[in-house]
């Protein structure tokens, strides 16, 4: 459930048509319900497109009040989807002039969700998928091919993720530290469970929000335990939320998220740097190959 106006999935400009009213049977008309005409939809999930001109029922937030005829920007989430729509208000703002709206664009829920994911990401990088491969298998699993036909290939579940590793050649680091190659473990399964998780192909370009381990939702005991198993290997990340991958066509969005300075080129990890210090001839990103020393 959305906790604040900034997280509201349905944002619209509306006009209050009736106080203490409802056009949805399951929502009783009382002091907390009003019927509002949707004048303009600012933000809505795809399924909610086309509500402009419709009258909907709004259940007011605690302490919220409206006047008949008042125009406002409503921040809401779904309540009842029937012949008509009822929403739960998370609050409203006064309707302001068109020219001032642009200033609010950066606070839209879509942008806010992306910001939230960036906030919790260990690193944000742009680059290209150079390879997709199976994760390294433990010896016991790798030996399954030698088992008898009656012994299963591990636990078989239609919800299995079928993890794959996408190797990302990093061209820019927007947040955190990242080596020139990172591995993103992703589910290749087409099962409903993984319908929203980004899936990657060789050659794909874009920006990845990298998360250590795996967590589909907020942290919890089971997820924490699972994170020890999935993507827990050093240098292996996950990007399971739809916001965690922005294709190159959305590069403007990524740039807008990091306005403070130009992205940095990928850095060599401390471990790799130490190795390279021992190998003076090694080439670093952006440097030209050194000429071979003559003996």
């Amino acid at each position, binding site marked *: *459930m*959305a906790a604040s106006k900034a997280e509201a*999935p*349905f944002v619209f400009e509306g006009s209050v048509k009736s106080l203490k009213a409802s056009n949805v049977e*399951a929502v009783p008309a009382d002091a907390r319900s009003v019927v509002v005409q949707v004048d303009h939809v600012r933000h809505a*999930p*795809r*399924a*909610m*497109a*086309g*509500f*402009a*001109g*419709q009258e909907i029922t709004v259940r007011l937030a605690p302490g919220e009040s409206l006047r008949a005829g008042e125009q406002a920007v409503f921040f809401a*989430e*779904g*309540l*009842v*989807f*029937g*012949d*008509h*729509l009822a929403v739960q208000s998370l609050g409203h703002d006064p309707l302001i002039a068109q020219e001032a709206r642009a200033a609010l664009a950066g606070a839209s829920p879509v942008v806010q*969700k992306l910001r939230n994911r960036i906030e919790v990401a260990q690193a944000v990088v742009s680059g290209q998928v150079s390879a997709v491969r199976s994760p390294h298998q433990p010896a016991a699993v790798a030996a399954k091919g030698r088992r008898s*036909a*009656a*012994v*299963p*290939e591990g*636990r*078989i*579940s*239609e*919800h299995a*993720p*079928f993890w794959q590793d996408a190797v990302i050649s990093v061209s820019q680091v927007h947040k955190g530290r990242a080596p020139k190659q990172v591995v993103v473990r992703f*589910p290749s*399964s*087409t*099962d*409903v*469970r*993984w*319908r*929203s998780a980004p899936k990657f192909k060789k050659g794909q370009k874009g920006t990845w929000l990298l998360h250590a381990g*795996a*967590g*589909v*939702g907020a942290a*919890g005991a*089971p*997820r924490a*335990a*699972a994170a020890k*198993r*999935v993507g827990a290997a050093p240098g292996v990340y*996950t990007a*399971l*939320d739809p916001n965690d991958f922005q294709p190159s066509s959305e590069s403007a969005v990524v740039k807008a998220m990091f306005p403070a300075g130009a992205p940095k080129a990928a850095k060599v990890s401390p471990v790799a740097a130490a190795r390279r210090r021992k190998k003076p001839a090694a080439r670093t990103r952006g440097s030209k190959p050194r000429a071979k020393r003559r003996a």
Partner: protein
Amino acid sequence: MAATLLLVDMIPNSLSGESEQDSEPMLAVNPNNPQQLVGTAFTPNPMGPASTLAPVFVSTDGGNTWTLNAIVPGGDITFDITVAFGPKSSNLYAGILRMDGPPDDTQLNILRAKNFQSPAPMQVLVDRIGPDQPFVQAALGGSGAAAKDRVYVGDNLPQSTVDYSLNAAAATATSGFKQAFVESRPNAGQNGPQVRTACHPGGVTYVAFYGWRNQSGSWTGNTLIVTADVVVVRDDSGGAGANPFRDLVDPSDGLPGRLVAKGVKFPFRRNGKASEGQQRLGGDLTIAVNPLDSAVVYLGFTGKVGSKLTLHVRRSTDSGQTWSADLLTVPFGINPSLAVNDLGDPALLYQQLTGTGASAKWVTHFRQATAGTPSTWSDLVLSSHPASKPAKAFDPYLGDYAYLTSHGHGYYGIFSASNEPDLTHFPNGVTYQRKHNFTTKTLTNLAGATVPTSIDPFFFKVTP
């Protein structure tokens, strides 16, 4: 007198803009008030993926109209959900797999709502890692004031299991449900996800499951073939005793669980294939008991006959000890669901792939027999649409199950199918709540913009 049919696309008018793949449906009918119905499917919260509650479909007018009520915890959608009403309390019970569970495992919740129309989230009664495909049934335990809600949840991984409570209305998050493992024989490491229960009002409870015995082919390569026994166990007191679900033994080995069909083979797919109507195959089971006589039980399962996947329907009239030959076989019939009404007459819902290539169709049938002539089945086509349209968004295309139940003489069911508003797809009629045009065969949102066709859940009621 001919049967009457009510068939309704369950997507409400206010969601005319939705184009989700609402597959794998389930239905609950309140036995205390059959005007009250709850349906489920892979329907996400329309407010988007940040939502923490998934919706159920609610009807309070016998299925004529439907609304969505988001009360299921665990994310904006579940990846398995079934529901049942408690016959004593009218509570709504659900078995789900939470979307916010651990990525490398499944997380089962058994849930309860004391008022299914309230926006309050359902209460978690069981929270367990590992099971798959929880399938809920409810029954009345006892009579009069002492009667209780009995709730049975068949699930699997790695063992065929029934989670059950003999007083689910009083169950808490820490107590009230028990687990019974119903497989008595060695298996091929695990059994299939389908564990189905059937409850007689007198307490006799049947459970059907596939006992996996062997595998060939490759799971990851999408060529796995499972060889299984179709097993039925029974408990004459609904699991109230010390050794639940051990009242029916097989004469061949004396172990609990009658082996109704041995060595049944079926594909267990990782992905649905175009040649199989985009549907992910993996076996099908259904079981139903005659409410007039607990000894009469019907069973449906799929298995290959030669190279053809085939649905079989059989009957036992002696509490599962002996079984008939096939009462009905259906080539490429999947998602079967059996129900028996209060006249003792069985009915069957299934979805059949017919034709090949571009002419392939998914045809959803409702068929009914009588207790006296169980080999003669009437046939009512509910839906028939091209198997290639719409293209699947994920697996499973239609779902791993559909559902049929009964109340009184009537049968209530739910299935998922293409929502293309083409009346030739619904030869016995249909009602849409969402914006549609049967002439132009188009869907629109509330503003009149065209909406692509997708898979919707359809409710139906057949009154014989």
